[in-house]
């Protein structure tokens, strides 16, 4: 059983509360999570123990239906969900962590750490598979955080913030 942990970090150019509000909305993942084509079922603001479902793009043209369960919420700090439907990836755990940081010019911004943990059974083949999928997953996580940054910027534009 091969266990993997993939972590990416980025700074979102918005105050922590604003970032938290957006990532807490289970109906909004298709708007910023790379590869989430559509949220097919959701429960609004994330609640521990409840689920939401997505249609995701996996490798190439392949699509999959995934179901996520919200496991932990530490308001404004940490959010942990587990997901099914990503075969051959198993035991998928998704963690978001946040920390307020000041930008060099004194704006309130947010450091976001995006972590995905999973196992791939299949022994050596699993290793091979991971060497193909992990770079794409990392790129997707970076894109997602860039998308989140753009989403918040787009909603706050024209309100005099910039």
């Amino acid at each position, binding site marked *: 059983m091969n266990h993997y942990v993939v972590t990416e970090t980025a700074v979102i150019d918005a105050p922590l509360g604003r970032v938290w509000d957006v990532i807490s909305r289970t109906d909004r993942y298709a*708007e910023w999570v790379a590869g989430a*084509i559509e949220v097919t079922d959701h429960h609004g603001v994330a609640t521990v123990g409840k689920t939401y479902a997505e249609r995701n793009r996996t490798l190439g043209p392949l699509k999959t239906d995934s179901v996520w369960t919200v496991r932990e919420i530490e308001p404004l700090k940490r959010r942990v969900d587990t997901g099914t439907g990503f075969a051959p990836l198993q035991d998928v755990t998704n963690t978001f962590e946040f920390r307020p940081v000041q930008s060099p010019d004194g704006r309130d911004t947010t450091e976001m750490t995006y972590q995905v943990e999973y196992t791939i059974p299949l022994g050596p083949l699993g290793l091979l598979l991971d060497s193909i999928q992990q770079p794409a997953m990392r790129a997707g996580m970076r894109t997602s955080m860039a998308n989140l940054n*753009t*989403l918040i*910027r*787009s*909603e706050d*534009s*024209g309100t005099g913030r*910039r």
Partner: protein
Amino acid sequence: MTDTQSTAAADHRGSRTTDVVVIGAGLAGLTAARELVAAGKSVAVLEARDRVGGRLLNHDLGDGQVTEVGGQFVGPTQDHILALAKEVGVATYQAAVPGETVYVNDGRAKRFTGHTPPDLFALPDMGIALARIGQAAAKVNPAAPWQTPDARELDGMTYETWLRKAEITGDAVDMINLFLNSAYGGEARDASALFSLWYVSTFGNETNPGTMERGTGTTGGAQDSRFVGGSQLVAQRLAEELDGRVHLSAPVRRISQDSTGVTVVSDAGDWRADRVIVAVPPLVASRIVWDPLLPAQQDQLFQRLPFGTLMKCVAVYDKPFWREDGLSGMGLLRGGSPIREMFDNTPPDGGPGVLMGFLGGKEWRKWAHRPAAERRGAVLRCFAQVVGDRAFDTIDYVEQDWTAEQWTQGGPTSVAAPGVLTDFGQWMGRPHGHVHWAGAEFSPYWNGYMDGAVRSGRTAAAELLDRD
């Protein structure tokens, strides 16, 4: 005076009298009124809103500049609106801005010039689709689509079903939906195949048969030109000419008729007339109280001609910055994107910069109920895919949701589902006693467009004068 006439007159004491009441001060009603006044009739135009123009609406940008949040484009073969605008002194200008168009598929943006989006997968299919649509639309008589060979079969399925039956695959259907998103405020699955082929057959005039290319085209097509001062100016000029005959804030609630004439009950008082022209959207007309009732078939038809779901989203910038980057501001965005089609809507003298996108059909259904800030963000992200991140630096942002307008109830026009045209279509323009019909939805050419509205106004006036 006969007995019945004196009774009718007594019933209607206190009501104003006129030869003709025209209901609705959109292009159709105003055109009809103009023709009738020219023929020597006394006319009262009753308009529900506190403004004229109906589906034409200018948005004030300040400094005497406007941009349109309703209908705006005109083009070749739309002879009636073009001639009318000229008569009332409203000039046109070329809508297209020099520069490259951007095609966005799956989040990836590609610049291109000309009419053909750079998509190797969609193109061959699109070619087949256009050829099939062209052949089938050529068999439709724009004045009587129910007489088309195989009319019942074509009217028994949605346009999407017909396209897929013709082996047109997902990519091309999505490209057609891109056009229908603004043209129907819907998509191919909302409309009957017969209705859609008929709609294409109306993109022309008596000498130039309708084609899909003319309907979807920018330069040389239906999106060729715009009006200096905004399209609503045409309606405003017509109303000025009518010199006090247009009564605003006068929604008509009830229309009663007997052998001697018609009584029209509005919030601004009652009118008694020999004849009436109703120039309001079909579904809105079916909600007026009719005494006697409309013929049931006609009422059923009007109930089955709802407008699509369409909103215009407009972002204003200090200048049209994308032009410096060699971009036309026009974007075509494939499925999944809230905005499917966008244009540079900057006033003709070059400032301020305006981008306009259609949020229609399925996308409207997904986004209309979302919080305004979230919707605006989604719209600006689409604009940014086409013109870059400066799209976020707006000085103003405006939305016009036509579904929220009581006197329009959707946009841009009526879309008929399967079964409507063949079962009820023939009832479309039939006079109901002393009542005649006008409106863009009553025209055999450019149905649902400004040109269709003007044509219908002229036809209704001529029909009325003919019966006198």
